[in-house]
């Protein structure tokens, strides 16, 4: 299968794109609605952007921001950044402007693509100041930065020279919620990205005939599948516009029109597709494989979806963004899955895993422990952190006596006697809401910084369609009591939308456990019965 496989250790993403453009230049690389680019066109267009970026002063290792929706132009910009030797930093347009500004500041982004985004949003980010020197896109002129229209940036000279990008160079930084209030930047290199892309292309047997749905936004690590596994197989990535992905019936039609063969997304969207997508009115015969990950898929709903699409293979994919993918479970086709939950299966060939019990020993079958992963697909480090940070990585001796670096996932795992791996929870208070990673400690910390809040608790409650939602309760400080709306508005200025509680209850006291800790489970129960 891996016909493009030639020493990913020394290869870069730009050299992959050029290799495919040389051999299969007229093949479709990316499509979105009625627009499309072949590999030859993608290579040429990204060269022109790379030349412009170089002229703007972008050098190897520089971080360049992508603050725009996922269009053909965005992917041309992304490959242009990589070709110029830069690392792209995808930024969720739904993040509050203060958080966007904090990310730009943190990784010293001087050039930012913001083409097609609402100018009001861009303006709000720039009001925070920061390192931006050049804005590529449509935006008001301002003090201290220049605006380059996208058309000019896309019209650089076409020059075949690469910036000498090496496998260990930074390729991209994905920011994720941490417990401290500062988003953590996950640093991936060309090598980790390509090792993942190759392994995923092999595991799912991707070939030139495949049309991979590009649903995940760029700031979500699932996107590296359609971005990089597609070119590894000389396949096409069919971008699903963000707006379509938000409306299940539009998503279903888009998948049909694009004739997609492989879909990788979060259970939340698949459940929406099942319940609201009008699947009986679309033809998804071309789909051969559905991969889901990011959160557990309730088996009852998964069974309904599998019954609706009996010709399709389904796989549960597990792996924190820090390691890309590391385990998989292929569901038996044509049968109901009888257990209430779905295992995450087995480690894929790229990954070496350990389940480490609280005593530091390897867990026995059935015993719970933290999952440690070692893999070439692993991040280099967190941005601003060290490659040997002991709170992130564990150093172990391998059989040959060499020190091996494992990423400590913080995920609690167990392995059953049949050798199957199960995700059983978190070591900390990180949660997944619609596949997005959030930290309840961060929600509480930001609530507690509000002047009218004395104590805060955040927890998950179950919403419609099996969707988990964040909710919170506070004990106010002495004085005028805050109201729910005001507190939510305050939180929305600091947290990504999925982390903003649907309700904030103001209480006189909290239920406590025997050890005087806040009983968040009781609070969640109370919130649940209040809405029933």
């Amino acid at each position, binding site marked *: 299968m891996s016909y493009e496989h030639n020493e990913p250790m020394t290869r870069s993403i730009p050299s992959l794109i050029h290799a495919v453009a040389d051999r299969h230049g007229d093949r479709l690389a990316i499509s979105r609605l009625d627009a499309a680019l072949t590999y030859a066109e993608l290579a040429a267009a990204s060269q022109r952007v790379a030349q412009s970026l170089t002229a703007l002063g972008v050098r190897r290792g520089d971080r360049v921001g992508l603050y725009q*929706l996922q269009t053909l132009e965005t992917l041309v910009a992304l490959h242009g950044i990589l070709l110029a030797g830069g690392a792209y930093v995808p930024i969720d*347009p*739904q993040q*509050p402007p203060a958080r966007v500004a904090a990310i730009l500041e943190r990784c010293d982004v001087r050039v930012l693509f913001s083409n097609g*985004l*609402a100018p*009001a*949003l861009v303006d709000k980010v720039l009001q925070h100041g920061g390192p931006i020197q050049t804005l590529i896109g449509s935006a008001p002129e301002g003090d201290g930065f220049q605006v380059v229209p996208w058309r000019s940036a896309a019209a650089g000279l076409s020059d075949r020279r690469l910036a000498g990008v090496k496998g260990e160079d930074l390729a991209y930084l994905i920011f994720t919620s941490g417990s401290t209030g500062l988003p953590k930047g996950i640093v991936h290199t060309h090598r980790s990205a390509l090792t993942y892309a190759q392994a995923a292309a092999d595991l799912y047997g991707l070939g030139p005939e495949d049309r991979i749905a590009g649903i995940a936004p760029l700031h979500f690590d699932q996107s590296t599948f359609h971005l990089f596994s597609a070119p590894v197989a000389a396949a096409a990535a069919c971008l699903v*516009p*963000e*707006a*379509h*992905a*938000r*409306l*299940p*019936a*539009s998503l279903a*039609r888009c998948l049909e029109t694009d004739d997609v063969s492989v879909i990788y997304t979060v259970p*939340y*969207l698949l459940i*929406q597709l099942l*319940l*609201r*997508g*009008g699947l009986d*009115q679309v033809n998804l015969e071309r789909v051969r494989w559905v991969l889901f990950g990011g959160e557990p898929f309730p088996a009852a709903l998964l069974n309904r979806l599998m019954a609706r699409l009996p010709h399709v293979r389904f796989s549960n994919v597990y792996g924190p963004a820090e390691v890309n993918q590391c385990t998989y479970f292929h569901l038996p086709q044509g049968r109901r899955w009888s257990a209430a939950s779905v295992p995450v299966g087995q480690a894929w060939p790229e990954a070496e895993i350990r389940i480490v019990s609280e005593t530091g020993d390897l867990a026995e079958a059935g015993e719970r422990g933290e999952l440690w992963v070692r893999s070439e697909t692993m991040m280099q480090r967190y941005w601003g952190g060290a490659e040997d940070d002991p709170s992130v990585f564990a150093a172990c001796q391998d059989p040959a006596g060499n020190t091996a670096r494992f990423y400590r996932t913080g995920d609690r795992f167990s392995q059953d006697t049949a050798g199957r791996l199960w995700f059983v929870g978190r070591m900390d208070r990180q949660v997944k809401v*619609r596949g997005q990673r959030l930290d309840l400690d961060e929600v509480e910390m930001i609530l507690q910084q509000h002047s009218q809040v004395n104590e805060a608790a955040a927890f998950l409650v179950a919403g*419609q*369609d099996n*969707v988990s939602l964040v909710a919170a309760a506070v004990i106010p400080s002495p004085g005028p009591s805050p109201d729910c*709306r005001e507190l*939510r*508005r305050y939180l*929305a*200025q600091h947290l990504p*939308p*999925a982390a*903003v509680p649907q309700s904030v209850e103001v209480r006189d006291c909290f239920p406590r456990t025997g050890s005087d800790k806040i009983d968040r489970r009781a609070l969640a129960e109370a919130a649940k019965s209040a809405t029933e």
Partner: protein
Amino acid sequence: MRRNEDAGLNRIDDLREFVVEELLLGTLDVAADDDLLTSGLVDSLGIIRLIGFIEESFQVSIPPEDVVLENFLNLNVIDQYLSRRGG
């Protein structure tokens, strides 16, 4: 005719208030022809809540197959869709 125009305006105002206050929590203002979805203003859960609000406030039932971009692109388009539904 005049009455209908007023009804339309009120409805758009009601929709706008819900989107701005409930979904965007007052962080941004929205014009009737601002693109709600493609500009990234409203997420998928927001759309579900908006539909719940519309069904409750305007006494209509919206079938899932109607929840498509052509009917929900912006506040004007939603208003026109509701008019077609006889609202």
